């Protein structure tokens, strides 16, 4: 039974790359048989792929340098080199600043069941990506539906992108942080003054009835964070406490409403 939908340009592209699902191939081949321009387009893509491989495959034959062969061996147990370059002094300072700033709070927060390392990581990630002018997010707001679906699938928990227009913030987009053991979702918002907020969340193991907002500030970054039954959330930004709290309330309210709507 042939498909009733006409092949799209993306189908043609997938076909050219040898990645089209077999059941779609018949429909594409029918188009290629009757439309010379499409056939030429597929041939063009394949030729371009071939030319790129021809140009870049020669590098595969180069002998690997000694230092990379050494890196392919298990490292000595005693050295735990940080994966970012210590030579970037500002990065090191930032990490030290966060470590020192959070020290006093750790004992208190541990007793109350909030994973301090998550809040610290959220602050670090906020600074890292909110200051990135060119690629602060991987998926932009114009693909919001796809973004939410993707985050939901990767996180294993329903994602929501709160609408913060009522408090002056528009969605910029999102990304997934997978450098740590558990993935963390990150959504970024921006207001007309180009101030940025990030909302991050990650799955949270422990059972907690406590949902009170906790507030922290580090190096000019304010953070409100809380836990619900599934996730730990952190809302970060360089706003003053009252402004950030207003936004946090909107976020919390929308997430809670979405939760109720699902039941």
């Amino acid at each position, binding site marked *: 039974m042939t498909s009733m939908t006409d092949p799209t*340009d993306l189908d043609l*592209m997938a076909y050219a790359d040898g990645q089209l699902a077999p059941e779609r191939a018949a429909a594409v081949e029918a188009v290629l048989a009757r439309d010379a321009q499409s056939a030429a387009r597929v041939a063009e893509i394949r030729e371009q792929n071939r030319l790129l491989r021809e140009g*870049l495959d020669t*590098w595969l034959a180069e002998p*690997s340098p000694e*230092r*990379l062969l050494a890196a392919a*061996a298990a490292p000595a147990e005693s050295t735990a080199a940080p994966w*970012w370059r210590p030579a970037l002094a500002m990065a090191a300072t930032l990490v030290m600043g966060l470590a020192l700033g959070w020290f006093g709070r750790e004992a208190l927060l541990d007793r109350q069941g909030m994973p301090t390392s998550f809040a610290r990581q959220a602050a670090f990630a906020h600074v890292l990506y909110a200051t990135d002018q060119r690629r602060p997010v991987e998926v932009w707001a114009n693909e919001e539906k796809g973004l939410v679906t993707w985050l939901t699938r990767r996180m294993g928990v329903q994602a929501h992108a709160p609408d913060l227009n009522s408090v002056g913030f528009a969605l910029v987009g999102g990304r997934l942080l997978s450098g740590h*053991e558990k993935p963390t979702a990150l959504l970024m918002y921006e207001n007309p003054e180009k101030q940025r907020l990030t909302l991050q969340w990650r799955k949270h193991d422990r059972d907690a009835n406590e949902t009170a907002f906790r507030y922290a500030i580090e190096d000019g970054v304010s953070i409100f964070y809380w836990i619900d039954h599934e996730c730990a959330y952190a809302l970060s930004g360089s706003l003053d406490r009252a402004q950030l709290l207003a936004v946090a309330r909107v976020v919390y309210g929308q997430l809670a409403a979405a939760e109720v709507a699902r039941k």
Partner: protein
Amino acid sequence: MSDGALPHPDLVAAIPRLRRYARTLTGEATRADDLVQDTLARAWEKRRLWRSGTDLRAWLFTVMHNVFVNQRALARRDARNVSLDDDAAGGEVWQIAVRPAQQARVELAELLEQVGRLPAEQREVLLLAAVEEMKYEEIAVVLDIPVGTVMSRLSRAREKLRRLADGPSPGLRAVK
């Protein structure tokens, strides 16, 4: 290298491909090898995250992409107060060295020059699809983006290459 530790054969086998992709990410050979070295170190740290039986190459590319993205973001923070020399497209200037024997291939040189003018996010997807021949789903995992975004970036990359190619010499390339 610690005493007695031999290089892991599967990692050694992956080094040439990692170096090649690292060169397209960084645009320069020494920084590329630095990136591969950092990637291998991180892979050892995070080796428990790799599920045995799944594609090791794809996982290593994912690790490398994470390392690269974070290093780039940190570097931009440090360079915030320094004016950066961008080309008009808003991306870094990207050049890729071609071996002398291939400089005679004008077609290849032109194509690589045009690839260099793509926005970085389009170039990365194009090279993973065309040169590494990764499936769209694998690319999505490596770059941590939805599959739909992989396909739309790939489509835009090829459209842009068409426009760049049609500039000086319009018409379709002859099919061999």
